[in-house]
């Protein structure tokens, strides 16, 4: 029952010293940099050898957006690459932020996903607190703060478009937190090709169908001229009345067809033996509940 006061002391020294570091430092939440030195050392070892470190999945991409008379039109391709391999042929690059704001993301796929998810959660909390749809400038400011805090280590280039009480807006946010407010935009590895088309045919206050065609053409030229973009085209139209997320707006002509069905029909593997064991259940309790059929 009674312990001498000296006993716990010696126990500490013999037990793992992890207890010591836990007394003095509560583990902080957020990013943990303990493994950085180890990773740098590992990369140095692996480069000399045959194996390579796995590359993060990027959305080498073409995304574009423009402001038209009734709202904002956003477009994106659907290819995600991991090094030289196409990792995902139907990647969704247009992310939901709030009922009136959508965001296209280029850069590292995980970074754009997580950042837009966090942004969407924060804006939902705000909407629940204030009872209003958030404004596009609010989303842009939150993103800018978050990305600048991490000094560009989060590789996310985003195009935010939305309709709010002050009009139709289109913003771009770079990985270091730089923003730009423009009527038409393209980002990603195919942005030069897309921007050429947009510069040629953009007019202020375009009609909806014309705007959709222009965005489609811009993404199409990005797909044709850039190896990192390809497959289908997604379009998202945001107006005061609501959002029309057309996925896919246009499928690529180069879809390959499967030669055969690869599902195995029943009877492919032969059954050698069969043993059936009936389970005997006994009734323990029986209750009857009257249904009110009046």
């Amino acid at each position: 029952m009674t312990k001498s006061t000296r006993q716990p002391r010696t126990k500490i020294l013999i037990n793992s010293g992890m207890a010591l570091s836990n007394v003095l430092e509560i583990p902080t939440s957020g990013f943990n940099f303990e493994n950085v030195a180890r990773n740098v050392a590992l990369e140095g070892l692996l480069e000399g050898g045959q194996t390579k470190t796995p590359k993060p999945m990027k959305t080498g991409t073409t995304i574009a957006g423009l402001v038209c008379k009734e709202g904002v039109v956003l477009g994106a391709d659907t290819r995600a690459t991991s090094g030289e391999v196409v990792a995902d042929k139907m990647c969704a690059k247009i992310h939901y932020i709030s009922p009136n704001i959508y965001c296209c993301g280029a850069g590292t796929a995980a970074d754009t996903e997580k950042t837009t998810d966090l942004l969407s959660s924060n804006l939902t909390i705000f909407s629940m607190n204030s009872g209003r749809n958030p404004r596009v400038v609010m989303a842009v400011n939150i993103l800018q703060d978050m990305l600048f805090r991490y000094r560009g280590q989060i590789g996310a280039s985003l195009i935010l478009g939305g309709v709010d009480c002050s009009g139709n807006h289109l913003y771009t946010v770079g990985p270091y937190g730089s923003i730009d407010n423009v009527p038409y935009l393209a980002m990603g590895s195919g942005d030069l090709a897309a921007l050429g088309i947009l510069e040629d045919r953009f007019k202020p206050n375009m009609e909806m169908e014309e705007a959709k065609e222009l965005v489609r053409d811009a993404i199409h030229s990005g797909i044709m001229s850039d190896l990192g973009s390809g497959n289908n085209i997604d379009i998202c139209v945001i107006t005061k009345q609501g959002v029309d997320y057309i996925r896919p707006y246009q499928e690529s002509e180069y879809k390959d067809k499967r030669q055969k069905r690869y599902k195995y029909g029943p009877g492919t593997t032969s059954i050698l033996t069969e043993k059936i064991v009936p389970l005997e259940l006994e009734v323990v309790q029986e209750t009857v509940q009257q249904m009110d059929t009046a």
Partner: protein
Amino acid sequence: MNTRGLRSQLKDSVPVTGMGQQVGAYGVQDTLRSGFSSVKNELLPSHALELSEKNFQLNQDKMNFSNLRNIQGLHAPLKLQMEYRAARQIQRLPFLQSSHLALDTLKGNDESISFEDILNDPSQSEMVGEPHVMMEYKLGLM
């Protein structure tokens, strides 16, 4: 909110006291987990963001309090800091997980989600402190 007037407050940043090495059993450097020890590893940060993330909350608070003092006078940050100090004392025993509800509400963390809430949640950490040691440390007996 984050970047205005940052320059004038930077010189008061909290100085770093070393990256801290991992101690294994018997209080000696744990080579298996953290590699060979070198002075450079201990003094210099291994990642560009390590220092700035470590001090981020402190620097934010310093900046906000000094802005508040300039706008509203000395009483405003004083009152707020008193409230923070009081809220920080509402905790369970040191080795148990406390929710920090009052402190979070004061700081406004209950209305926002950031990487601190998703990554490395202390309530789900795999290591737990030794209860006796932590109590003794807290009570100043150690």
